[in-house]
């Protein structure tokens, strides 16, 4: 009976020892896996940071290049090179409207409807921005060159 107890104890010890070794191994493996995962994640983060920095660098380069292409000198060169003929607006090309634009557009539209064709907007005095003179009715609707 005594011998049987001893054997059982030894067996239990062996089982627990094996279990302990297994658990310790599993814990060790987990720790190793964790460290490996941490290293991999840290490496991935580092890569992403490098990519972000690279993107920032490229963006800065593109921003500088775009700014250089948008300088007035560069735009003037392009204008000449491509023969676009773009020029600054001059004051004498501007008709200033200080009244309500809706009424002016409506008047223009009405004039078009009544004349049956496009009519020029009333001329404005450049200093007062008011009609210089009441628009004259069309003299001849079908005259060559249009109504004057």
């Amino acid at each position, binding site marked *: 009976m005594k011998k049987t107890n001893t054997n059982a104890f030894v067996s239990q010890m062996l089982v627990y020892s094996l279990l302990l070794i297994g658990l310790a191994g599993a814990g060790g493996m987990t720790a190793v896996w964790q460290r490996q995962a941490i290293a991999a994640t840290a490496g991935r983060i580092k890569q992403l940071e490098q990519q972000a920095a690279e993107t920032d660098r*490229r963006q800065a380069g593109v921003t500088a290049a775009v700014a250089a292409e948008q300088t007035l000198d560069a735009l003037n060169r392009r204008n000449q090179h491509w023969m676009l003929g773009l020029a600054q607006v001059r004051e004498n090309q501007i008709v200033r409207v200080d009244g309500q634009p809706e009424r002016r557009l409506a008047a223009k539209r009405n004039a078009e409807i009544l004349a049956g064709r496009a009519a020029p907007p009333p001329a404005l005095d450049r200093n007062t921005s008011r009609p210089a003179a009441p628009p004259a009715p069309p003299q001849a609707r079908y005259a060559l060159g249009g109504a004057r």
Partner: protein
Amino acid sequence: MASRGFASTYRVALLAGAMLLCFAGVGVKLVRLHIIDRDLYLAAVEKSRQQSTTMHARRGDILDARGDILATSRSMIELGVDPQTLRPEDEPKWPELARLLGLPVNQLRRVFQTRTRAPAAGAAGREIRWAKLRDEIPESLYEEVNKLGIRGVYGQRVYRRVYPHSQLAAHIVGFVNKEGVAASGVEAYLDNYLMGYDGWRESEKDGLRRELAQFRSRDVPPKDGWSVVLSLDTAVQNWAEEELAAIAREFQPRHATLIVSDAPSGFLLAMANHPTFNLNEFNKAPMELLKNNAIASQLDPGSTFKIVAASGALNERLVAPDTRFDCSADLATHNGRSLRLMRDDHASDHPLTVAEIISRSSNRGATLLAMRLGDQRFYDYARAFGFGGRTGFPFGGEISGLLNPPAKWSGIDITRIPAGYSISATPLQIHCAMAAIASGGELLRPQIVREIRDASGAVVFHYGRESIRRVLSPAVAGQMAFMLQGVASRGGTAAVAEIPGYQVAGKTGTAQKIIDGRYSNKNHVGSFTGFLPAGNPRVVITIIVDDGRAPAGGAGYGSKVAAPGFRRLAEKLIPYLDIKPVAVAGAWQALAAHGDPRP
């Protein structure tokens, strides 16, 4: 008893003893390594594994009022070589590298083959671990260099400042030098906002010097710099510089300055100097070109200063616009003394009104106005207009000019100062004085910075209109504005500045320069300062031409060298800034007839 041969007890004991000794030796060594010398070796290991990396912040941009970039930073590569790690098998690639870098092969070879620095006396030569090949190369070129695969050739990334507009607003924007130190202009003034803060990181590295990211112990990310938005407009600045270039071609002045500001707020739209320099090549510019003459040089303001006496006398209600003065007399009595007056360029056949004194730029008339005002009050008005003190322009080494108090005046100063002599002012002071009339009588601080934005673009600071003091009542400012229209009208000294349909108010100035201690008849400072429209001022423009010479050998009067430029620039600004004409038909005639401040 049978013999046990080699495995005798004695031999086994000897072997066991030897093994024990070996283990004991290992133990002793382990004790020495891990206990006795532990700290020493641990420190060495940590020192070699630890690494601290600086992460550079990107400097903020400088933008104009429309968002155009005036200064920005871009990543560049400083390319170098470690001659100790070069491999012989890479030598055939050297010519290709030299071609990519634009260097002579022999020069490249010399750099590669110089492995030690010249030794100091009695010392051994030091190994070269880094020799610079090119200062700044772009990323794209660096990629091509890397493709060659030459071991030992590598680059260091740095942010370098670039100025896309080159010379535009050079004195305002300023520059950052090769050491990364902001040296002038907005770059230096707002360096704290622009520079950002570098980050740093502590971690460990492996045997190949690669960072082991999992061992990062401290990680402080960089903070990029904030951006600065100026009130300058690149289009206006460009036209101002074009105008100065045209003036320089025609009149060949020593210096010329042009300032444009927004009349209601005092913010500067342009500030240009001739000659100027290219910000991307600041190291090639002579030192004298780096000086912002608009604020750091002084000159006699000449007749532009006459607005002080006239405004002061009107503001004190000592005169009205139609009050007449006899400007034909050579002498005037002041404080019981008879003083000889300066000559007028144009003789007057009748007593001049205050308005005519301004429009005809009468030296004598200005003197008589100042005399009526009195020394101290005249001085006080000059100070109130900003003369003799800094305007508050925040950077560039502004000087205060020269305006002595009456106690230090000589006997004839009261006949000279009202005409703009015996006084010195900076171009910006002259501009601000005229701007005070344009703003309705308030002296405004000339400002250049509109906003400061953080790295995400959010506005952190916003700057607004800042009034220094009220100089004139709004009514007197209006009277002055309408009287100054007479200058840029037929019969005025600057009829050439007239713009049909617009009311231009302004004042010419021509001051003789002192050459060899005497006023020269050939060397002048010609100027024109004015604003438009007079009835509702939008922009103030000042042009100062120092020692300009008319093509036919004539003197550089303000009406010749500066007023035409004012008109040309104003004609460009009218449609660009959408400046509308103000309907004040006959206002000038009404003023001349009745002396009313406004119709």
